[in-house]
């Protein structure tokens, strides 16, 4: 099971009604609760990972959750390397996931161009 929001009816803190926040992630619209971080919205919309590493193309999502590890970085409104766990979502935010290919080896200037999705500078 992926992470999920605590259903308000079951929550021991007895939450007041909260409003929704709408963002798009890689062009798909996602809804979270107002005040959620982008990581919170991603996690509760079924994504456990949203970044691929440069060396091994390995999946990453939230690890430290407090802005230290940078595993969760995404592009927000064209701005790269935003820590999803630290940035509160604002209505209409355009979020793009990042898959950063390695820089080209000097001897092989074409390798970067052929890399799948390289850069993700969105």
């Amino acid at each position, binding site marked *: *099971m992926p*992470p*999920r*929001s*605590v*259903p308000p009816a*079951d*929550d*021991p*803190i*007895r*939450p*007041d009604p*909260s*409003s929704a926040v709408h963002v798009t992630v890689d062009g798909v619209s996602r809804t979270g*609760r*107002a*005040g*959620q*971080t982008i990581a*919170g919205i991603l*996690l*509760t919309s079924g994504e*456990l*990972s949203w970044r691929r*590493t*440069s*060396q*091994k193309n*390995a*999946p*990453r*999502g*939230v*690890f*430290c*959750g*407090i*802005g*230290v*590890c*940078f*595993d969760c*970085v995404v592009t*927000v409104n064209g*701005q790269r*390397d*935003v*820590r999803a*766990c*630290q*940035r*509160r979502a604002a209505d209409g935010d355009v979020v793009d996931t990042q898959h950063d290919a390695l820089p080209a080896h000097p001897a092989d200037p074409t390798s970067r161009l052929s890399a799948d999705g390289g850069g993700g500078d969105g």
Partner: protein
Amino acid sequence: MADVLVIGAGPAGLAAARAARTQGALVTLLDAADDVGGQYWRHLPDNRSSERERVLHHGWAAFTELRRALDRDDHCRVLRSAQVWAIEETDAARRKEAPPAQQASEGELRRTTVHILVGPADGAARERLTLKPDAIVVATGAHDRTLPFPGWELPGVFTAGAAQALAKGERVAVGERVVVAGAGPFLLPVAASLVQTGSAVVGVYEASRSRTLASGWLPRPWLLARAGKKGVELAGYVVRQVRHRIPYRTGTAVVRAHGTDRVTAVTIASVDEQWRPVRGTERRVAADAVCVSHAFTPRLELALAAGCELDDAGFVAVDADQRTSVRDVYAAGEITGIGGVELALAEGTIAGHCAAGGSATDDVLRRPLRARSIYQEFAQRMHAAHSVRPGWTGWLTDDTVVCRCEEVNCGALRAAAAATESSSLRSLKLSTRAGLGICQGRICGRTVEKLLADAGPHGRLRDDARFDRRPIAFPLRLGELATDDQ
């Protein structure tokens, strides 16, 4: 009127701000997060109000009262979403006992300059701010230290702090069947938070063995009784554990996480007194989330940028006034030693009072001074019972990722250390790229230092390079530097 800057608004920073105000200083309290409280009082944002948020916290009423008082105080400026990215020290500031002549002509010269960006995390158009306070209290806290194990980089493996932050800060449950592992009393509140989000905690696996725990916690129990409040808090967690029948197993560790694109199970093994895994004790436990923390790493970059010296244990060295080796720079809370909230509050109060011109011999500090001595003793017990033992490297394999950013594995690090016969951290970093990724070695730094020291001839590092030294304390955009308004 003295002008005091408090960096970090967790328990230590909040207490420092209040004490400095009581002593009559003008205070600026800032935090990188968008509200005060730190990791300890991590909470829901204003637009997620609720009737009983207090049930997730200890000391919630005291916190909200303190926050309200500081926010309403005209002589206390509270800056939220404020990231300090550099501190410039002056030579005069470095000298603690400056000659009297210099003290007389101090002015601008002795002041430390603090560079701040205010705005949304990692945003592009943050406001730049430069402060030159008379005194600084550094209260930047600590983050989880998770020792690497095979598979720890899989999605679904979190630090215990991440699970806690998501539970308290967003009401998000990281999984349905959750394993909590590592070491220290912090694992218990994390398990309790998970239960409050409706997750099933499969077990809490504490690496220290019962005998180590007993020899750390039990000697001279009459001293422990002085720490009454803390004892009650821990007892509360134990009661909750029993009520929910969460198994708490000592002398056990997660030695591997399984899965391809996400974690699906872990291997638990018994470990000996030195945390060496015991062969033949492995068993597999299914889980969809794993929360692991073995210790805490102090967030030292700003204290180091200010020029503060560290003690032998790698924390900021302070005197009885909580003053660091740098004149007019004080430190409080976890950066001076891991000790928990009561110690942080006491140290913060003393630091704030002294930064505002007071002294640790002043009568008003009688209670915080007594609390500091009690909880320092408590912290020593915690350290004796739970501190990282060297045998944990026994669960590493050659292909265990150590540096998560640059994906440098343990085999590569050990091979580089052996091939170069080098116990120089600088050369190991350059030859393997370990610790040179975007987190700047915050996650792997202490582990790389340990593996390198183990490989070296004398079991220690040759150079004094440290991961904690970062000229720019936090990554920022070149554009933010370039928009110079001078």
